């Protein structure tokens, strides 16, 4: 029985796509939106729409408070921070391969998309709903651009990396205690999955399960 594996001796000096500037872009967008919001605070309507129905009519209107106005930005910053952690995990804990850079670029693009969507939501709220349709149009356009970017990136690498350690897969789950990689490429589809044999796999799963609960608790406490 043989188990042949191959790896390049080349040192990978590439960091996260775009470097520090590229990675901080979503946070800069959210911060800029926050500064803009603060600068027009006195001109904001005293009652602001924060949710719209399927026909574009506001169905939830709240009083102007800093929490309600900046909630999309805080939520966006939280999601972007999660994506940054995911990027760092892929960078440090996943084996090198053709899928690594496309995956990191997609995660960065997702951060920019989330920041743009949150900024658009703030603009719609701050305008009292007047700019809801233009904001939604920008969001829709950005989704289309993001989807096209993702398809173009992954179409290029598809099938280039061989399946890792075939004997250690059970359906779509991978577990190998001897494998130091926390993240490995999925068996089916695009992206990464957790190596359930890794000592950090269970703590990571627990953290992922706890995060939404922590988010809800934080939202209630801040309200």
């Amino acid at each position: 029985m043989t188990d042949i594996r191959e790896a390049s001796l080349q040192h990978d000096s590439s960091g996260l796509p775009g470097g520090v500037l590229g990675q901080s872009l979503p946070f800069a967008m959210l911060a800029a939106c926050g500064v803009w919001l603060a600068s027009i605070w006195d001109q904001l309507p005293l009652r602001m729409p924060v949710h719209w129905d399927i026909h574009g009519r506001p169905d939830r209107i709240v009083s102007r408070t800093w929490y309600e106005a900046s909630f999309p930005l805080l939520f966006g910053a939280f999601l972007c921070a999660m994506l940054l952690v995911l990027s760092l995990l892929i960078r440090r804990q996943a084996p090198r391969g053709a899928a690594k850079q496309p995956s990191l670029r997609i995660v960065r693009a997702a951060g920019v998309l989330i920041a743009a969507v949150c900024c658009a939501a703030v603009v719609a709220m701050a305008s009292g709903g007047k700019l809801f349709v233009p904001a939604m149009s920008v969001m829709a356009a950005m989704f289309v651009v993001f989807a096209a970017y993702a398809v173009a990136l992954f179409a290029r690498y598809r099938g280039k990396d061989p399946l890792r350690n075939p004997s250690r897969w059970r359906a779509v789950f991978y577990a190998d205690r001897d494998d130091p990689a926390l993240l490995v490429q999925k068996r089916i589809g695009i992206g990464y999955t957790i190596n359930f044999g890794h000592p950090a796999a269970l703590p990571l799963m627990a953290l992922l399960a706890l995060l939404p609960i922590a988010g809800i608790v934080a939202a209630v406490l801040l309200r």
Partner: protein
Amino acid sequence: MLSGLTIQCCLVILDNMKVRIDLHGADPVWRQIADQVRAHLVEGRLLPGTRLATVRELALDLGVNHNTVATAYNKLAEEGFLRLVRGVGAEVVEREAPRAAKGDQQRFASRLAALLAEARAAGLSPSVLQSILRNAIGGLS
């Protein structure tokens, strides 16, 4: 411009330079790694100043324990081929060819004889073995 081309050229060469291991092979994995890197080094494919993949990178790619790769790199560092810097990685260094110690020739001759016998037992003909040896020696010059 020239240095840029040189760097690019080195990267292309390094990109094609791989380590191939058999997890169930007769030799321990660390030795397989050390032997292959050493072969690249003595054949001049890895030049002084070249930075190799870090222990973490190689271990993640091969799916083996970090200690396995670290043992291989340490062995090569002991032999004077690599300089290991914590947090930076492994760098190829200029190495003066050591003078063969007394008995080295006999020891290597015995190992080679055992390897040739193993190859003959596996069914490789003398002409094939001669060709392999010729190619291997050609790579050293």
